[in-house]
């Protein structure tokens, strides 16, 4: 107690992660279907993606920086909502997929 436990000090090694970009967003990502990013968490991976392609940000995140409700994110084949959400750690070679869900309805307003 009272002294630093050296075992807790780790270098923040970034992992090489592939992010799969869904078809409707590829127009904002130079038509690429994926991007390589370095990250420690899923959130960082998404941040890395929007750093590369700034136009993606508004389609993935709300104005206050939260993932839009119809944006689903999978780490390999697991929905991150059932893991640690955006804080879910990633490993080298992991694949983060952005998968749309679709909703709508009448209540005409135009």
């Amino acid at each position, binding site marked *: 107690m009272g002294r630093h436990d050296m075992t807790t000090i780790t270098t923040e090694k970034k992992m090489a992660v592939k992010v799969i970009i*869904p*078809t*409707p*967003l*590829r*127009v*904002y990502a130079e038509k690429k279907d994926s991007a390589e990013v370095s990250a420690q968490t899923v959130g960082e991976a998404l941040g890395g993606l929007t750093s590369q392609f700034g*136009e993606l940000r*508004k*389609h993935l995140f709300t104005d206050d920086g939260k993932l839009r*409700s*119809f944006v*689903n994110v*999978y780490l390999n084949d697991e*929905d991150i909502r059932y893991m640690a959400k955006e804080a879910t750690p990633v490993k080298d070679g992991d694949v983060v997929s952005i*998968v*749309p*869900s*679709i*909703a*709508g*309805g*009448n*209540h*005409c*307003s*135009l």
Partner: protein
Amino acid sequence: MAENVQLWMSHDVAERIRRHGEETFPYECCGALLGRDSAAVENSAQDGTQPEAGREVLQLFPLVNRRDDSPRNRFAVTADDVRDAEKAASQHGLEVIGWYHSHPDHPARPSDFDREHAWPWYSYVIVSVMAGKPADMTSWRLNDDRQNYSPEGIEIRNSALA
């Protein structure tokens, strides 16, 4: 991006969308539009001519409306449904180019709710079903600023891209 664009479909595809809306009335129907975006095809020609901006629906992937709490005025397609639709499209060498749904007893125009939940690039086809009978059918694309939709002309014709 969403200006002066056309969505092509055959008479049969158009009828199947209308029929789906009729079958599920008074609830909303929904499904995926599988086809090809013309830009991807015509860019490869590189003949210097201005390509005709458009895309063609070649198949439908009807889905079950997951909104069982308010299916009369809402529809929902889960991420698993989207993945299934993408898999089906890819098996036919196509891609998911948009979605269709019905507006029972409402005009075929997108709502604020539609806009808030829309993705760019996709074509959103809406068929109005009035008193159980299919009426107008329109198509829309979300603008880049997410604030509005642009209408997309639907042209019924025999397949040009297949």
